[in-house]
């Protein structure tokens, strides 16, 4: 079935919200650094995961487990233990980035379905097919760096299902290949499961405005009428050759509603909504819009136009109240 809607579940409440509003699948993480949203108060212990699985399976939906950080040598067992728990709980798939961990999963649980995480940084069919041949990976999530024609070229040259990010926070860097956060704070998504961690954030009101810092590094300074966003490192304002601007990326969200007909046509298997750190209310609203949009495009792709109400609702939820087609749309680059 093409264009499966895959929604974020940072908590049991968010999981139920996603399922109740039409997600075909949800993805979650365990409550530690084995996943790339290792935030305090987020994610699932085994009992909650089991309840979430029951809730989803009773309604014919799937649960995917993100195990997408890179296992560290001295705590390798934490990651293999997470694979063991996923298999025991009956997860519909595990989303992995690390080749060594994939080898472990295939060896011990040959029936467990494997997805290649976006953190695996596979941007070509040669890379995607590598994971297929060696570990039987059945789906790959592509980094948010390819244009749509480039995505189509991957789809045409691999039997692996392709999942794309559709909505939410926008990584401007290739996922899995960005160490900006650890350069500044010591912790990166790859090794610690966090980007620009909250514990390193400092806010300070000064005479020149509200300042946001990450481990002491000034990321931005906001004037009176400016809305301050979460200080994600790549979305700060910096000085380059005497000019102060968003040197890497504006605080904006990815929104690909406009591209749904093309994604359907090229055979994209699933659309992923980013945001396990978001509230159940957010998940409710985003899932509802995307369910309606995917149903509409499947009914009639030729005449599909995103309803103005959908765009308005999504923009309200977007970072900086604005959105972009990101790399899918060539001029963004």
């Amino acid at each position, binding site marked *: 079935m093409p264009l499966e809607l895959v929604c974020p579940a940072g908590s049991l409440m968010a999981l139920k919200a996603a399922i109740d509003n039409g997600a075909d699948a949800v993805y979650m993480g365990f409550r530690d650094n084995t996943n790339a949203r290792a935030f305090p108060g987020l994610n699932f212990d085994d009992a909650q995961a089991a309840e979430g699985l029951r809730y989803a399976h009773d309604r014919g939906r799937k649960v995917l487990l993100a195990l997408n950080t890179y296992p560290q040598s001295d705590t390798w067992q934490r990651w293999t233990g997470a694979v063991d728990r996923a298999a025991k709980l009956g997860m519909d798939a595990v989303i992995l980035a690390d080749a060594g961990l994939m080898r472990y999963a295939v060896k011990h649980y040959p029936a467990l379905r494997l997805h290649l995480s976006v953190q695996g940084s596979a*941007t070509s069919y040669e890379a995607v*097919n590598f994971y297929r041949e060696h570990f039987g990976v059945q789906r790959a999530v592509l980094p948010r760096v390819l244009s749509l024609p480039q995505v189509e070229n991957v789809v045409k040259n691999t039997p692996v299902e392709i999942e794309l990010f559709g909505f939410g926070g926008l990584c401007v860097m290739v996922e899995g290949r960005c160490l*900006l956060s650890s350069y500044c704070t010591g912790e990166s998504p790859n090794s610690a499961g966090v980007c620009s961690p909250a514990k390193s954030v400092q806010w300070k009101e000064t005479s020149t405005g509200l300042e946001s810092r990450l481990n002491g590094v000034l990321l931005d300074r906001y004037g009176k009428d400016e809305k301050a966003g979460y200080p994600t490192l790549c979305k700060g304002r*910096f*000085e380059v050759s005497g000019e102060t601007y968003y040197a890497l990326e504006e605080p904006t969200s990815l929104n690909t509603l406009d591209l749904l007909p093309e994604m359907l046509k090229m055979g994209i298997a699933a659309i992923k909504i980013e945001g396990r750190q978001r509230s159940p209310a957010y998940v409710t609203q985003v899932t509802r819009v995307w369910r309606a949009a995917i149903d509409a495009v499947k009914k009639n792709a030729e005449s599909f136009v995103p309803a103005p109400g959908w765009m308005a609702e999504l923009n309200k939820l977007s970072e900086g109240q604005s959105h972009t087609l990101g790399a899918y749309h060539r001029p963004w680059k």
Partner: protein
Amino acid sequence: MNLSLGPLLYYWSREDTFAFYESAADWPVARVYLGETVCSRRHLLRLPDWLDVAGKLAAAGKEVVLSTQTLIESESDLKVLRKIVRDGRFLVEANEWGAVRLLSEAKVPFVAGPTLNIYNPQTLDVLAALGARRWLPPVEVSRSALAALLDHAPAGMETEVFAYGRLPLAYSARCFTARHYNLPKDDCQFRCLDHPDGLPLATREGKPFLTINGIQTQSAGVYNLIDELPSLRELGVACLRLSPQSRHMERVVKAYDAALAGDASAAAGLAKVMPGASVDGYWHGRAGLEHDATQHG
């Protein structure tokens, strides 16, 4: 322990690039990594040119390694990759897993580059089975994390560590140099040529923070492990990678060579030719931009 000259991460004119490698033939490095690893639009040297340089350096007694592009986006990127693998005369460094696939299919030994994300011995073992004979950890890996990995590393695997230079930290589809000049990436006018050591990015209070290098983002601080040679030796690290800079690279290489030979004054000499502040936080398990104050100031 010996020295490697890492791949050139910046975009220089043809003349400057040829001149750089002509002098490198006489430097005390055991091997040289060649090729464009950052951006496929950088074409002043095409693969035949690189192979030409490779031949000359090999004739001068250097081990030559062809380094592959880190972010593969298009079919033409894959074509170049296939040509590199097919050439067969030189060892190849794989910087993403598509290259690993092609090299293992060709059944040739290869170097597993620092962007393959090898954080544990199990993944290194997967690569060893596919033909990797040398590897580099990601630049963020600390001494103690590397030690834990090497305790269980596959036999016969050589370890190379990125030891000197601005740290390559991130890759994007977007070109930040073109963005700075308000140019579309597809018509970037090759502005990277104006910035032979990248474009400095500072915070709003003027503190150097990062370096823009086309689609790559580097640190502003210069990673420098010259004070860490004893711990690198103790770990059994075989080679140290020195990343090219546009000026004084010969002095950088000679400083490391002297330090390897036991010259305690080499670090102070190196400090004079570094294009930015020394950082080594990653090696000590801290934020990358930090510097171990117990060492040279």
